[in-house]
């Protein structure tokens, strides 16, 4: 560095960068040490393991060090660092500094590293005989993650992207600011010109964004644990043993990842304006896919533990789940999604780095499976048709197939890149996904219901058919009612079937739960989780399928015949301030604004009227917009929550000012101001008379002989009279007192405005003989009046979706406790059945 720059704080960045290198080095050392601890035959394995432990603990410490350095930089607004400049600003409240951490890719990689570090330390403590091989895999994964943060150049290519890069290194400031071209001597003092950072995207300034990313990344990070166990099992030829300890970790991973995904969905529902809780966006799919495959994986792991069947499927699904997690991070971070997703991260030039990350673990898994193929404990004997394991296996296969559809469609940009094609995503991706995924859900949910009546190994068929049929009949009856009431029958048949399957799943698991309370308490966990999942399906099908736009508005001008003919839903309704409009069952009024920078809230009053026009319910919703100079206009909805449905409202268009514009500026001349109004109409009226105008009426209630006008002293012969006017506009009343004045022989008048009624009133003349007063009424033309354009959607029964999630998580917690208890009581090796070395074609697929 040849210049010194004034005001830079280089130490925290250098410290952070040191920790990054340390974390990469220590993770690599841990991987190597644990590798030798696993393979060493010379008696040194204990020493290697000790070294591995020290290295991994050092790794966690240095990851924490990175986090602290970054926090210090953002907290102290050190904008000489690109990350702080790009993702924060001085006005950012302290609690959102956390969110600005993971707005960028580097911060979210750090979060992932942190969780993986914590999980690794838990495994060091808990994994016992599995420690060395499992930690080899986890340390390798940790080293690859840390390499994403390196940001150092090797052979001319930059490896990773460091959060500690300086602003002047990331951006050519001299090229951007002409002042440095003309006065290069000022460049060393560049920091004094940078007074604030870019700030955090307003959409991320939301409490859900403080907790959603950590949960999601804990979910992603914990997917590595079952993967590591599966690899360790293959590597150490402990084919049967790995399943049992891995089940708890796999359950934990799906629980946390599932929670994280739904939290994201809730955040989208509460603060994004696409009007829903799930959009099948590639970013959402990327997180959902590994979740579904590992859900399948958990089920076949349990099958294997109980019966010795489905070994290969269990291994396959566990391995593929983690590879899909890495693939998800490739999709969302490499920029490959390009035009197809609105909210993917930008390309940091790490395309190949991310590809390598996926490839390393994919090849590792593939090679190990191929090498060990002949030895795998694959059961030759077929499962009984009337056995739980067979149908659980089938269900898991279908879950995996649903992921195949999601992956194939989401990856369209990848196919384009690989094969040089130019396919566009489906025109109507949401419908396509809904139909396909509902079809898979029918099969999966039916099986999750049916298998509850089957036993492992062999079931008494007579009894199975009777109970199964009784519950099916019950489910059909309930479904018929639900489908009729909610109107699902008007949709494609597949949604009604999905509803039937989901209700069947809930019912049969309620039966298991009641049995559980009678004594088989260990079954409670899975029953509760299944009930939760069933309710999620019920909620999703009704809410997504029958949500309806309340603000349908066909009153528009219909510019051309073709445009009018098209039956696109006209979903936006325009509201002038204080003019009620009927919308569905409601009378809605845009009543005004309240501004709490940077949010501009629009107060929208809702009245529900009964047949006689009586108000039965009234509430105010406050959707908001932010007009931010840097990020543009961002709108967030507001939602009225009922027990059985939600009413969701968001503003799609409003003439609001940018947050840094001066608000209203006075000092306009009167003539200028008049331009904002239609030509005035004069009325000569007496006290008690009424003037009618477009939206109501005005009554002259009296005269105020002692009217005062600010700052004007009246002399003895001067006169000031105020006209006491009552203005009633759309049922609301206001008062106004325009003043007529004679001062030193000259006539003046002082107008008064009633902004909420869009009026300006002048008192211009008194005719004492007739006893009449002249009042001039200025009315704002319609299009000058404040207005909003908004959209309102009703989501029925969406609470099933959210409450199902909570119930499912409770079920997972119960299941994890049960599996952990089993680990302690049962001998580590499962009693597998007769095992053959020859793979059956069934499991080979």
């Amino acid at each position, binding site marked *: 560095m040849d210049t010194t720059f004034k005001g830079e704080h280089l130490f925290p960045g250098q410290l952070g960068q040191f920790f990054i290198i340390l974390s990469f080095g220590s993770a690599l050392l841990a991987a190597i040490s644990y590798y030798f601890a696993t393979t060493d035959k010379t008696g040194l394995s204990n020493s290697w393991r000790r070294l591995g432990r020290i290295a991994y603990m050092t790794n966690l410490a240095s990851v924490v060090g990175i986090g602290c350095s970054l926090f210090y930089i953002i907290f102290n607004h050190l904008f000489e660092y690109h990350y702080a400049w790009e993702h924060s600003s001085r006005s950012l409240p302290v609690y959102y500094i956390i969110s600005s951490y993971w707005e960028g890719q580097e911060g979210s990689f750090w979060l992932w590293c942190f969780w993986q570090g914590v999980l690794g330390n838990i495994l060091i403590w808990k994994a016992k005989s599995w420690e060395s091989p499992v930690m080899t895999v986890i340390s390798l994964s940790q080293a690859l993650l840390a390499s994403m943060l390196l940001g150092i150049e090797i052979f001319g290519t930059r490896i990773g992207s460091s959060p500690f890069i300086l602003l002047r290194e990331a951006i050519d400031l001299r090229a951007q600011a002409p002042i440095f071209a003309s006065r290069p001597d000022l460049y060393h003092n560049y920091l004094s010109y940078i007074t604030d950072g870019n700030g955090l995207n307003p959409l991320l300034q939301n409490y859900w964004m403080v907790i959603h990313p950590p949960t999601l990344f804990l979910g992603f990070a914990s997917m590595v644990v079952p993967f590591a166990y599966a690899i360790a099992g293959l590597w150490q030829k402990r084919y049967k043993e790995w399943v049992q300890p891995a089940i708890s970790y796999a359950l934990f991973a799906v629980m946390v990842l599932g929670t994280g995904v739904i939290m994201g969905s809730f955040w989208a529902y509460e603060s994004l304006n696409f009007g829903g809780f799930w959009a099948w966006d590639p970013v959402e799919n990327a997180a959902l896919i590994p979740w579904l495959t590992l859900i399948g994986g958990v089920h076949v792991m349990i099958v294997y533990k109980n019966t010795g069947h489905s070994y290969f499927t269990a291994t396959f699904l566990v391995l593929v789940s983690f590879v899909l997690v890495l693939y998800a991070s490739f999709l969302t971070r490499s920029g490959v999604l390009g035009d197809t997703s609105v909210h993917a991260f930008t390309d940091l030039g790490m395309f190949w780095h991310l590809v390598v990350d996926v490839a390393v673990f994919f090849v590792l898994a593939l090679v190990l499976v191929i090498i060990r193929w002949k030895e795998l404990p694959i059961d030759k004997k077929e499962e009984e048709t009337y056995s739980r394991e067979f149908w659980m296996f089938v269900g898991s296969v279908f879950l995996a197939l649903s992921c195949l559809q999601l992956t*194939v469609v989401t990856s*369209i940009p990848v196919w384009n890149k690989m094969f040089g094609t130019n396919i566009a995503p489906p*025109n109507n991706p949401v419908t396509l996904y809904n139909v396909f995924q509902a079809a898979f859900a029918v099969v999966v949910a039916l099986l999750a219901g049916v298998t509850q009546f089957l036993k492992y190994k062999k079931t008494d068929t007579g009894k199975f058919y009777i109970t199964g049929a009784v519950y099916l009949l019950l489910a059909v009856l309930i479904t018929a009612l639900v489908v009729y009431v909610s109107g699902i029958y008007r949709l494609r048949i597949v949604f009604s079937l999905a509803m039937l399957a989901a209700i069947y799943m809930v019912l049969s698991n309620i039966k298991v739960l009641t049995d559980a309370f009678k004594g088989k308490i260990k079954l409670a966990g899975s029953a509760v989780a299944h009930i939760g999942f069933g309710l999620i399906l019920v909620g999703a099908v009704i809410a997504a399928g029958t949500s309806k736009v309340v603000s349908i508005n066909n009153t528009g001008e219909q510019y051309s015949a*073709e445009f009018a003919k098209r039956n696109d839903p006209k979903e936006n309704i325009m509201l002038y301030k204080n003019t009620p409009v009927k919308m569905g069952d409601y009378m809605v009024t845009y009543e005004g604004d309240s501004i709490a920078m940077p949010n501009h809230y629009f107060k929208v009053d809702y009245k529900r009227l009964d047949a006689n026009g009586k108000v039965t319910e009234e509430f105010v919703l406050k959707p908001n917009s932010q007009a931010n100079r840097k990020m*543009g206009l961002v709108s967030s909805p507001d939602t009225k929550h009922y027990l059985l449905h939600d009413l969701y409202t968001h503003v799609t268009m409003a003439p609001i000012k940018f947050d840094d514009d001066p608000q209203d500026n006075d000092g306009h001349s009167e003539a200028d101001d008049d331009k904002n109004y239609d030509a005035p109409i004069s009325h000569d009226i007496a006290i008690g008379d009424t003037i009618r105008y477009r939206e109501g009426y005005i009554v002259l209630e009296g005269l105020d002989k002692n009217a005062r006008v600010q700052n004007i002293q009246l002399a003895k012969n001067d006169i000031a009279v105020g006209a006491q006017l009552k203005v009633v506009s759309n049922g609301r009343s206001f008062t106004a007192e325009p003043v007529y004045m004679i001062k030193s022989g000259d006539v003046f008048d002082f107008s008064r405005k009633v902004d909420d009624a869009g009026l300006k009133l002048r008192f211009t003349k008194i005719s004492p003989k007739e006893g009449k007063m002249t009042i001039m009424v200025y009315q704002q033309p319609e299009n000058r009046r404040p207005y909003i354009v908004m959209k309102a959607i009703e989501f029925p029964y969406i609470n099933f979706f959210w409450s199902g999630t909570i119930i499912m998580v409770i079920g997972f917690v119960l299941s994890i406790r049960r599996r952990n208890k089993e680990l302690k009581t049962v001998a580590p090796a499962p009693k597998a059945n007769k095992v053959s070395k020859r793979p059956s*074609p069934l499991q080979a697929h």
Partner: protein
Amino acid sequence: MKKSSIIGLVVIAIAIAVIIGLYSNASSYGSFADAKKTSGELHVIGYLDKQKELYYDAAKDANYFSFYMKDKKGEECKVVFPGTKPQDFERSEQIVLVGEMVNGEFHASHIQMKCPSKYTQDKVEFTEASAKKADI
């Protein structure tokens, strides 16, 4: 036939159905010229013509928005969208439309725009004020 073979066949059948499903539903990217030739919806990528009028008047119709877009081949066409003007539309750099051509007007059913927000551009704001001098 063995149960396992049946399952295997079902799996393969579904996998094929999924892929066919993709191809029959996948759309294609094209230009306005392509849109004139085809019936049915198409993706068109292009740029907003900022010289011409963006028309949206909520008072007349809250669900009519029209503008002019140049596709990647440079052909310009009037686009009509049944909705509000998307927030910040003027600032868009690139637009992806989904829709079809009707009588020389492109009727978009979906607009996706890319803005030169902070995500895509590193633009430093220099304030020429007497900035607070950070203390070393």
